């Protein structure tokens, strides 16, 4: 028996195949959705395309049901689990946010402690608001030059586990938005040794499972659950995602948790896009990501040749807080040309018609993927050269730190639901915040519910607003006032 015989046939795409059959059957719809294969909404059909709206259908016997898969969705999940090396895979249609929330809700109850880095995505802390778990933050190290949060150091995780033996789970952000990885294997081992689950927010790591020479994946490391944003590097439609589980998780229980918040009308557009993308990556992922890595390496070299910018890569690896680096990421430090990342981000879009993923205080991130071509990279690099020529200035006066160590006074759930009052932003110092404040993207909270508001945090918010960061979270959309505990 060769290796191929023992695996599932990754050339299959059961949901896609079932939808093709369904289309040929010309079934008469007396069920929802009411647009009836697009006929009821000609303008929408013209815009989105007939082929697309024809498969926007409801669950039915030949197409299975996402809430309780028994046929084609079940097969698609088995194929995905096989492709990712997971014990089980769940198709998710509520974004990776829903995958992350399921990880937390499946392992934590009210009052349970969960160990996590503070630079998590808002979806993690939202899940804590929902379930009432108590965050124990591990301070991620900050790179002084770049001003970005790194991975979790092993000794910091060990210390948090030792000081909180009653914690139920450790959550790792791997890789970070910037492509920085923690020592996933050791952290998983430490968590398991202490009887805790290891959960991985792997939103930016889909390609780790398919490319050659990529950082360790959550499933390889033996983690219990991983949230994988197939729609980011995997090429599926926005809002589609995978939740992966290891052998220690009970898939029936995880399904119940998913069904607490997930729609009962799962979109077949999203599900088929997951199925087709999984097939593409399983069959061709190695070549695809080799090409993306080569483009990113080339772009890093060219950006660094301009001068002033620093496109960072594997040279940062230090064996601990930067255990590994995602070779497909093009993260560029801009402060040495005297511009905040968000300013470069805005100039690129407003003057050069180039949209990048995000800019923060000191860095920008250009997202490279499957769909990129060398000629567009040449435009990006040339535009950066032009921005330097036209706008370079003295960089003093730019804030130089990104990580603000939070003082957690109340759990996110307590703070979110507690009696509160609204105060002007500049009078809020010393109060306990009851809502989120973040720049989006990347959506990592500056303040989370239950945290003490300090002068540093207020200065940071002020600076980010002045530089043009798009701020979200608070009830007051202009962020002139904040809700604090009464």
């Amino acid at each position, binding site marked *: 028996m060769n290796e191929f015989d023992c695996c599932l046939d990754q050339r299959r795409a059961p949901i896609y195949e079932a939808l093709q059959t369904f289309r040929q059957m010309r079934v008469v719809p007396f069920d929802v959705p009411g647009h009836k294969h697009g006929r009821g909404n000609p303008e929408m059909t013209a815009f989105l395309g007939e082929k697309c709206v024809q498969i926007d259908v409801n669950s039915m016997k030949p197409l299975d049901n996402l809430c309780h898969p028994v046929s084609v969705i079940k097969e698609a999940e088995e194929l995905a689990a096989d492709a990712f090396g997971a014990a089980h895979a769940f198709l998710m249609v509520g974004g990776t946010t829903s995958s992350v929330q399921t990880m937390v809700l499946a392992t934590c109850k009210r009052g349970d402690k969960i160990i996590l880095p503070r630079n998590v995505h808002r979806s993690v802390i939202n899940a804590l608001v929902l379930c009432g778990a108590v965050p124990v933050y591990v301070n991620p190290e900050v790179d002084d030059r770049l001003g970005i949060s790194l991975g979790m150091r092993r000794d910091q995780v060990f210390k948090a586990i030792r000081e909180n033996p009653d914690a139920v789970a450790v959550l790792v952000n791997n890789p970070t938005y910037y492509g920085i990885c923690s020592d996933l294997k050791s952290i998983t081992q430490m968590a398991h040794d202490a009887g805790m689950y290891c959960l991985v927010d792997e939103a930016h790591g889909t390609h780790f499972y398919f490319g050659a020479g990529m950082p360790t994946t959550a499933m390889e490391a033996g983690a219990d659950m991983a949230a994988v944003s197939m729609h980011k590097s995997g090429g599926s439609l926005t809002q589609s995602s995978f939740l992966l589980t290891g052998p220690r998780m009970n898939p029936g229980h995880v399904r119940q948790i998913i069904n607490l918040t997930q729609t009962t009308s799962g979109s077949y557009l999203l599900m088929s896009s997951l199925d087709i993308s999984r097939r593409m990556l399983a069959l061709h992922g190695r070549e695809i990501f080799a090409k993306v890595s080569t483009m990113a390496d080339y772009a890093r070299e*060219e950006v660094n040749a*301009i001068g002033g910018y620093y496109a960072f890569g594997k040279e940062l690896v230090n064996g601990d807080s930067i255990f590994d680096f995602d070779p497909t990421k093009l993260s560029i430090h801009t402060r040495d040309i005297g511009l905040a990342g968000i300013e470069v981000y805005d100039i690129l879009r407003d003057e*050069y*018609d180039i949209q990048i993923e995000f800019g923060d205080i000191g860095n920008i991130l250009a997202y490279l993927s499957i769909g990129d071509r060398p*000629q567009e990279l040449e*435009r990006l690099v*040339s535009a950066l050269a*032009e921005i330097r*020529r036209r706008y370079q200035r003295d960089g003093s006066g730019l804030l130089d730190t990104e990580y603000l160590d939070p003082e957690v006074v109340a759990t996110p759930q307590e703070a979110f639901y507690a009696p509160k009052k609204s105060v002007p932003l500049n009078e809020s110092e010393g109060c306990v915040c009851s809502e989120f404040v973040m720049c989006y993207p990347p959506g990592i909270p500056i303040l989370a519910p239950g945290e003490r508001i300090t002068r540093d945090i207020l200065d940071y918010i002020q600076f980010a607003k002045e530089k043009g960061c798009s701020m979200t979270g608070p009830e007051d959309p202009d962020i002139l006032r904040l809700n604090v505990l009464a």
Partner: protein
Amino acid sequence: MELWFSEFHAPDVKHSIRINKHLYSHQSDFQRIDIFETPEFGRVLALDGNVQLTERDEFIYDEMITHVPMAVHPGIKDVLVIGAGDGGVVKELARYERIERIDLVEMDPEVIKACRAYLPENASRLDDRRVHIYYDNALRFIRRCSEQYDLIIVDSTDPFGPSEGYFTREFYGICYNALREDGIMVNQQGSPFYQHDAEAMQRSHQRIVHTFPISRVYQAHIPTYAAGYWTFGFASKKYHPVDDLDAAGWNKLNLQTKYYTTRLHVGAFCLPAFLEQLLREVE
């Protein structure tokens, strides 16, 4: 048997040329390259199905993109040509003894190969000792250059294919930076007639206006291009295309031309009212 080559000049307008023979067809890494033998236009080069040149009317384009800047700036010695793999622009430039260096940057080696084989007259001066051919992406090539050229000629294909990057603000910016303090950039700027083309022309004009202190548009009649009507951009750091025309100096060179004259030079910058209006909207 009737064999016709058709090209869409607009979504609802087609231009067709009768073909005697399909001489060459090749899909390169960048584009599809075709060369036809035709009764009316002689040999025709098409890239991705768009006519780039015909033996019959190439002189108009090549003369107008070359002699206009050459008659304005008396000190042009170092020239950079972008695209132009067919060799037509180089053929005109090579007639000037004062030019010391012609750097040609073409992304697609297959275009030059095909033109050498099937359009030998056009490609005849590519082997001139002053010509240096670089197979590279022009953005990549130019952003390494600083104040080293007197003239840059952008002889690209349309802004909707592999040359899209040559109609961008970043491209014009790095060209500006690669030119000496009195340098000139001339580019083909498309047809101002059909809506799709007119909008692209406006966008690139707007970007050039924001990059160079002097920016003017001039026109020529080219039968095989969309609407038979073509524009060029003249962007300059110092010289004005009409006020600084050295007609006497150019005429003393005694170059024989079929389209360009120094009288036409002045007229080419006088534009019809609708085109003036289109340009004013974005200036």
